[in-house]
């Protein structure tokens, strides 16, 4: 008969574990967000071209604000669209 220790890992213990979100700007020491780098900014918008919320990207408030202003500048310069579908 199997002991308790064996039974404990019959199911994958990692299922249901949430990976901790983090602010990539703080983690990697990025201080400036370039509004001309639209490929980078694509990570922070959804396929309609809308800004993703902090609860999804994990950005800290300080850098979320900077991302937001960078995306808005990129939109003004027609590097990113204001409205669209199937961006990604």
């Amino acid at each position, binding site marked *: 008969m199997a002991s308790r220790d064996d039974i404990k890992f019959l199911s994958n213990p990692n299922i249901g574990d949430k990976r901790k979100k983090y602010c990539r700007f703080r983690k990697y020491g990025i*201080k*400036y967000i*370039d*509004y*001309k780098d639209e490929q*980078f900014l694509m990570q922070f918008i959804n396929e309609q071209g809308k800004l993703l919320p902090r609860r999804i990207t994990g950005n800290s408030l300080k850098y979320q604000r900077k991302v937001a202003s960078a995306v808005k*500048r990129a*939109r*003004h*310069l*027609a*590097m*990113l*669209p*204001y409205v*669209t579908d199937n961006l990604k």
Partner: protein
Amino acid sequence: MNQYEITFIVDPVLSGDEIQATAKTYVDTLEEAGCKTVHFDDMGIRSLAYPIKKRTNGAYFCVEFQAANGEIIEKVELSLRRDERIMRFLTVRLDKYGVKYNEDKRNGLIGKKKEESKSEDSEEKGAEAKA
């Protein structure tokens, strides 16, 4: 002494020389006013994310310069606004991190980083696709 950056889009219907000349006039105006041009970047003709004045392409330029005070910005923006060859422009004051970022970018430090991360991404994607 502040560092500024003006990005503008020139109408691509003009010939290549005319586009260059248009961009050059603004660099000259800045230099005449006593600004020190740090960098002049010709980003080339790129497609726009949405049409502006019924154009789908635009020639992008970026001028980075140092100015003693902000008065020159107003003058340059006025002439940009009046110029029909300019489709869009944006002036930004760079903070110390922005200045450093642009310097690093010119020295190729930032592009390299991105290539690495991109290759990592593609590897990850490839692994996912295989799995």
